[in-house]
């Protein structure tokens, strides 16, 4: 297959206000960000001929892409919902590229909005992941616990401590404090993290992502057409996915995850490596996820994440700014959609608060991670 690195670009980027949005529903958050994204790209709904959503966690929302496209009066030639958990927003961009490359669509919108910060007034029932009856009888329920299993192994294999994980939370919070659209804007210290209660030991409250309301969207088209759009386009340079297991009972390891292979594929497509990345937006459902992914992506050796995240290295101005928006930990948890929009905004330049703009940002990597540490997707974006 011909290398498609740089052949496609992001030409529209939008986010809603995040946090607690009691006045909004899942549907209304989608519509809000659809409009904002069309406005950003200078397009009308009828210009969108491909439309991708994330399968919502509510079974009233089956065939969600077609439902939302219809509410916005689009009649796309390509539509689908994807369901790769927190890897979905990146996978949406990848499917947009595939749809355009195949000739099925020209201008594809990828949208994800989530209503978890306040009760969702839309009727429906939560979707199961499928293995609950192999977990719940022993009292195992949550994503926190799945990641606590990984943290426990990382601690055992490499001597990582809870205080090491605190450095991830503190650096991420620093960026949120600089973001006007972040939920948590009170500075955090290592001591604050260490004083926060255990949720599922060894993970504490401040190791965990927020539950949020909000949404994000991007529009993908060919790099050739991208020059005609009002905002500076962002090139899609590399893409990868890797899904090494499904159940935790079948995971070959809990300390090297799908990101290892997924990033290798993305680097190969882009013809770039970790040293070429000016920043990284790393899916951070928990602090341990950031640390493992930084290792898997080759920014440091396996087991050295605990040293890499210290001394300002992952802060804006440091060697590799990570989660420049405040991440799922401190900005908002929209399942990684805002990691994609943030990376695009960093590469456009002049779109984020100057204090958290990465200087001379030419290329950045974005990770998505989902399920019981089983799904992973990677995107490398570049300035055009």
């Amino acid at each position, binding site marked *: 297959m011909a290398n498609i690195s740089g052949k496609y670009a992001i030409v529209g980027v939008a986010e809603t206000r995040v946090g607690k949005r009691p006045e909004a529903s899942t549907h209304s958050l989608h519509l809000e960000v659809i409009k904002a994204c069309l406005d950003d790209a200078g397009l009308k709904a009828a210009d969108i001929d491909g439309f991708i959503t994330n399968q919502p966690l509510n079974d009233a929302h089956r065939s969600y892409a077609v439902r939302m496209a219809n509410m916005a009066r689009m009649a796309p030639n390509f539509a689908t919902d994807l369901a790769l958990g927190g890897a979905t927003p990146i996978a949406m961009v990848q499917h947009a590229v595939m749809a355009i490359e195949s000739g099925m669509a020209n201008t594809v919108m990828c949208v994800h909005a989530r209503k978890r910060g306040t*009760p969702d007034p839309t009727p429906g029932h939560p979707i199961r992941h499928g*293995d*609950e*009856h*192999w*977990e*719940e*009888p*022993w*009292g*195992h*329920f*949550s994503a926190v*616990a799945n990641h*606590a*299993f*990984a943290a*426990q*192994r990382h601690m*055992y294999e490499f001597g990582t401590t809870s205080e090491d994980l605190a450095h991830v939370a503190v650096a991420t919070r620093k960026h949120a404090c600089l973001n006007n659209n972040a939920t948590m804007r009170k500075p955090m210290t290592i001591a604050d993290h260490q004083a926060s*209660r*255990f*949720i*599922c*030991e*060894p993970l504490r409250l401040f190791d965990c992502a927020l539950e949020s309301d909000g949404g994000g969207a991007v529009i993908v088209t060919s790099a050739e057409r991208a020059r005609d759009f009002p905002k500076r386009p962002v090139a899609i340079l590399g893409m990868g996915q890797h899904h090494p297991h499904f*159940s*935790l*009972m*079948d995971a070959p390891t*809990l300390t090297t995850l799908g990101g290892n292979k997924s990033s290798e594929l993305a680097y190969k497509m882009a013809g770039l490596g970790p040293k070429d990345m000016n920043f990284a937006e790393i899916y951070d459902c928990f602090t341990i996820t950031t640390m493992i992914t930084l290792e898997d992506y080759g920014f440091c050796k396996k087991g050295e994440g605990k040293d890499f995240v210290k001394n300002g290295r992952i802060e804006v101005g440091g060697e590799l700014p990570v989660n420049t928006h405040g991440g799922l930990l401190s900005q908002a948890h929209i399942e990684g959609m805002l990691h994609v929009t943030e990376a695009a905004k960093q590469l456009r330049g002049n779109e984020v608060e100057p204090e958290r703009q990465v200087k001379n940002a030419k290329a950045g990597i974005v990770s998505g991670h989902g399920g019981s540490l089983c799904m992973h997707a990677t995107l490398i974006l570049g300035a055009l």
Partner: protein
Amino acid sequence: MSDSKDERGRAVRQVRPFLEELEAKPFWANLREHKLTAQRCKACGKFFTFPPQGSCPHCLSSDYDWIAVSGKGKVYSFVTYHRAWHPAYQDKTPYNVSLIDLDEGPRLISNVVGCKHDEVKIGMPVEIVYDDREEYTLPQFRPVE
């Protein structure tokens, strides 16, 4: 426990195993007789992983037996729940959930019981305990003396 409600008063699902699951029925039936069993492929001789499935994850053969295993294993990883996600566990925190690697290979999500949650360690040898409930028997593990 049939009418469990969450903190918002909504009915929540029960936390019992699904005893009639086609691929898992023998697992639960054997446990009722205090036998821990796992699927082993008759074509390649390897043990399946859990949850049970209709064909071998190694060679995809659907010819397999349920084999009694030793019930001994080691803790691969463990966590301590300090928060309950379900009303049935509200008064049980803090409690342990562990990944147990059976000596024969397959891994189970289970609990280490019979010691304090902060005494559990990775690599700790454990053996099975059969916890007989009204409708099913739950496999749990305790430290080997």
